């Protein structure tokens, strides 16, 4: 089990997602520190992409705002460097294949290693295409995270058995912020995943309320929250940090209650 797996395996975990550079990297840095302080178990940092095809309009807009605000891969690396020593929780990057590919996979992963980034999520790299990325990630002690969806069906066993770090179980169909209802199939999906791997299985995409988080952690090892943080940052921009903290507290409390 990798370092990331062991850390996330200790309890039911909460992983917030932020789009880096929305509205600017200074705000993102402040929000990461606030999340760490609130008790988040790891933070997923989105590196913006011009055409984030797997996202709904909410996160698409966050990507556009970040790019318009001057966020670049190098600027985001610099921000991560500035805060890295202030927090001890794992940081995970999430971005699209072309962002990593154009930077140079080797160069990208090497820089991540120097920053202590422990995982990488690339939504447009499925099982069939993971090899070329995975080889490089492994040589820089980074877990390339596998995603599994309710539509994965017969693919679950092969994806889960080769997964590293944690399994990102996609909670519902479709793009991330447009699901109105959580699908009951997610519980079934998680139990199938757990039959094939002992690394943590964390549910993400579209989890918006403490009640949903509590429900999910009834059977999953943790949740990823993306849309609500994005909404908060969209609304309060540079002043978003207290609201980010407040929401994180409510989610963490809900998750901890399910354990008790």
């Amino acid at each position, binding site marked *: 089990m990798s370092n990331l797996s062991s850390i996330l395996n200790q309890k039911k975990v909460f992983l917030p997602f932020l789009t880096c550079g929305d509205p600017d990297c200074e705000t993102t840095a402040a929000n990461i520190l606030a999340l760490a302080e609130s008790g988040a178990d790891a933070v997923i940092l989105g590196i913006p992409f011009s055409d984030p*095809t797997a996202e709904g309009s909410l996160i698409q807009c966050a990507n556009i705002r970040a790019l318009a605000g001057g966020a670049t891969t190098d600027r985001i690396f610099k921000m991560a460097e500035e805060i890295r020593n202030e927090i001890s929780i794992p940081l995970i990057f999430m971005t699209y294949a072309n962002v990593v590919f*154009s930077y140079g996979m080797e160069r990208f992963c090497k820089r991540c290693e120097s920053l202590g980034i422990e995982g990488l999520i690339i939504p447009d790299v*499925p099982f069939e295409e993971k090899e070329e990325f995975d080889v490089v990630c492994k040589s820089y002690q980074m877990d390339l995270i596998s995603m599994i969806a309710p*539509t994965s*069906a017969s693919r679950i066993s092969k*994806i889960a058995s080769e997964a590293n770090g944690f399994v990102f179980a*996609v909670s519902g*169909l*479709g793009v991330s912020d447009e699901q109105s209802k959580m699908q009951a199939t997610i519980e079934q999906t998680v139990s199938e995943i757990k039959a094939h791997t002992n690394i943590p299985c964390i549910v993400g995409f579209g989890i918006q309320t403490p009640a949903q988080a509590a429900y999910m952690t009834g059977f999953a090892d943790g949740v990823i929250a993306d849309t609500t943080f994005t909404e908060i940052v969209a609304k309060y921009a540079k002043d978003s940090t207290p609201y980010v903290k407040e929401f994180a507290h409510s989610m963490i409390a809900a998750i901890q209650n399910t354990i008790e």
Partner: protein
Amino acid sequence: MSNPNGRFGIHGGQYIPETLMNSVIELEKAYSYYKNDPQFQAEFSALLDEYAGRPSRLYYAKKLTEALGGAKIYLKREDLNHTGAHKINNVLGQALLAKKMGKTRLIAETGAGQHGVATATAAALMGMECVIFMGEEDTKRQALNVYRMRLLGAEVIPVTSGTATLKDAVSEAMGEWCKRIEDTHYCLGSVMGPHPFPTIVRDFQAVISREIKAQILEKEGRLPDAVLACVGGGSNAIGTFYHFIDDTNVRLIGCEAAGRGIDTFETAATINTGKLGIFHGMKSYFCQDEYGQIAPVYSISAGLDYPGIGPEHAHLYDIGRAEYVPVTDDEAVDAFEYLSRTEGIIPAIESAHAIAYGLKLAPTMNKDQIMVITVSGRGDKDCAAIARYRGEELYE
């Protein structure tokens, strides 16, 4: 040309979210069955002949040839197909395939609107529901095609995300397919996207070069020296090239939209200005910045206004089998007008890019040489926009 994983050399592949994987696998399985099914092929052939009006003519452009004084020029008249462009070839194939797979709903992206019109047409013919995604910018440039699609019973959804053009329409259509895969087939309009689309669309468009080959052998008793087609995603070009790929004496020339020039940012010439990347499900060449952000490309032609190119073209370029040349807005508009006056054929502004390069190349060739240019579509849809380009206050 592609291996089982849909690779053309290093290009192609399936770079898509996990949520879509089973859909493309289902499509791949269905296609590998039906492509060898004589019944399917017979039905497809009948649709092409009886409904689309194939074979399309290979027309000897005598006046154009004489005016240029070089190679003998033939025009492959895809503009004479039903719905006025080559797009119908692919759409009839995919709609038939979708129907066989038990799907009841077709969705598609469209740039100029020709693929959207063709998809709406096939949906009407086969009694299927139809939703077309079109960049809001393009719905303005091609208002008449929006009306056509609605007339044919399709719902047209203007896409406002990103640059509100073709690439954004592709992204939205992919997102929609993600959400509703049980009853929906994504009828992708070009030789791009994840495997198996580049292969499926190429196979359905290959009828163009199959016919050219037979027609030119009948008329001239030999193969052409060069075949030309415009390239956005590259479906009419791959259709025009495919059956000549092994005939290495035939030059294959793809004409890219250079917009205001390949030395400006307002261009869509992917091979000439792009670099290797991964986007919309495939590894290929893309117009992008140093951090891999996809560039907001520009061309006067909505159908060529796309930042990528199909993976098989990228491979043909890598191995030096095909050439890709840039053609500017100005050159395309000149050719649009020139062909209209010389031959009485108004080409689509997309096709005018291929004509424009033909006008340059033909005089450099000998009179005993033969050039075939595919006129991928007719230009009625472009008349108002070209009039405005020339400063006339003409609105549809």
